């Protein structure tokens, strides 16, 4: 049986915790608004880019860019986009569980963006090839550095395929762990949830079957494809940040709610104990009086 003083102490400590989580919730909320906006702003560009590429790639004719060549081997690299800090619910856990179940084998090279992914990779004995960090908000140059490493691995023939695992932002409550194929560029996938519903017209108007390129296919695709990959990685970093802050906001809100519930329960218990003590004392006084009166 805890003494009333113990309970009072616990209430105080839980109150402190609640104050901290409340503050963290507010901070995450402010950051979330910004990060969500940044992610959402990038989506129209991503959508048009995806549509353009899927049309151009299917109608490029004879031309093949090195990024588009499928190889027979199955050595893979995986870019793992996680958060740097914890306290964001099951965000990283969900992503890492999915990745370890389905994608990582002993010779998968891991490129980590975010500290949590790197820590997990080391703990699990994965082949960690490189570790990057990215800012808040993520800068385009940071995305380019990650992309460059991945492209180098692919071009040098060290790996035959590069995938990227990240948490796609759907809304404040829902974030989905997803893995997309980055290289070779095969089919074009969207970075956002609603993209399956988008119609992608692959039939060209006027009965034409091939795109003309100006100045020529090599030049245009040679610029467009690297740009596409850079942009895609950047958009993925933005989505991850938006997911992170949303998840943290929700996690901290839950923590605050739980702490407040705990305070309520403890206060009830404390009051019960206090009342029991008072009743006890009264009882003793009356008994003593009765004893004296006799």
């Amino acid at each position, binding site marked *: 049986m805890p003494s009333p003083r113990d309970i009072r102490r616990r209430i105080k400590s839980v109150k402190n915790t609640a104050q901290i989580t409340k503050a963290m919730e507010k901070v995450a909320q402010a950051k979330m608004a910004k990060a969500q906006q940044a992610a959402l702003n990038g989506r129209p560009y991503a959508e048009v880019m995806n549509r353009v590429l899927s049309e151009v790639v299917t109608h490029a004719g004879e031309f093949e860019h090195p990024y588009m060549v499928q190889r027979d081997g199955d050595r893979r690299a995986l870019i793992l986009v996680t958060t740097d800090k914890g306290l964001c619910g099951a965000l990283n856990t969900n992503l890492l569980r999915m990745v370890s179940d389905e994608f990582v084998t002993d010779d998968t090279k891991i490129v980590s963006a975010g500290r949590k992914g790197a820590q997990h990779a080391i703990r699990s004995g994965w082949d960690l090839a490189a570790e990057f960090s990215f800012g808040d908000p993520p800068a385009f140059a940071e995305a380019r550095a990650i992309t460059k490493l991945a492209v180098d691995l692919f071009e040098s023939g060290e790996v035959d395929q590069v995938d990227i695992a990240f948490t796609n932002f759907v809304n404040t409550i829902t974030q989905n762990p997803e893995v997309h194929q980055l290289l070779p560029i095969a089919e074009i996938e969207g970075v956002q949830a609603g993209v399956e519903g988008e119609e992608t017209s692959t039939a060209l108007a006027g009965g034409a079957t091939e795109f003309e390129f*100006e100045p020529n296919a090599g030049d245009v695709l040679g*610029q467009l494809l690297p740009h596409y990959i850079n942009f895609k990685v950047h958009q993925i970093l933005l989505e991850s940040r938006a997911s992170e802050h949303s998840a943290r906001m929700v996690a901290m809100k839950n923590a605050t709610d739980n702490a407040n519930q705990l305070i309520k329960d403890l206060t009830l218990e404390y009051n019960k104990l206090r009342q029991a003590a008072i009743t006890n004392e009264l009882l003793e006084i009356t008994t003593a009086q009765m004893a004296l009166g006799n």
Partner: protein
Amino acid sequence: MASTLKLEIVTPEAKVYSEEVDSVRLPGAEGELGIYPNHAPLMAQVKAGELIAHKGGEESILAVGHGFVEITGDHVAILTDNAADSADIDEAAAEEAKAKAQQRLEEGSDISEDEAKALAQAILYSEAQLKAKRHRG
């Protein structure tokens, strides 16, 4: 057969323009392109410059930065780093951005290749903004 073109201009930050237009004139890397409905499918690079969209006798003038354009018979999609409607362009701000970029390009000794490229693009885009603005005024 399509009789109008769906013109979309997007930048990584926002969708700048999305409307049905009759024709559009844009700055291709190899010279100006005039696009009418049912144009042959074309994929081209875009350089910084002014873009003029015609729609029922009215014309809108925009400044666009470096990027790509995809043309099919019924739509024109422009992916660019920057774009702005000439009505929203602040001439003084564009001048200032240009001067700043030029100064950095001339004075900085620690400029990486990437940064130099970005600065050169910024200057071209500022010039395109000024051109688009003055065209209207």
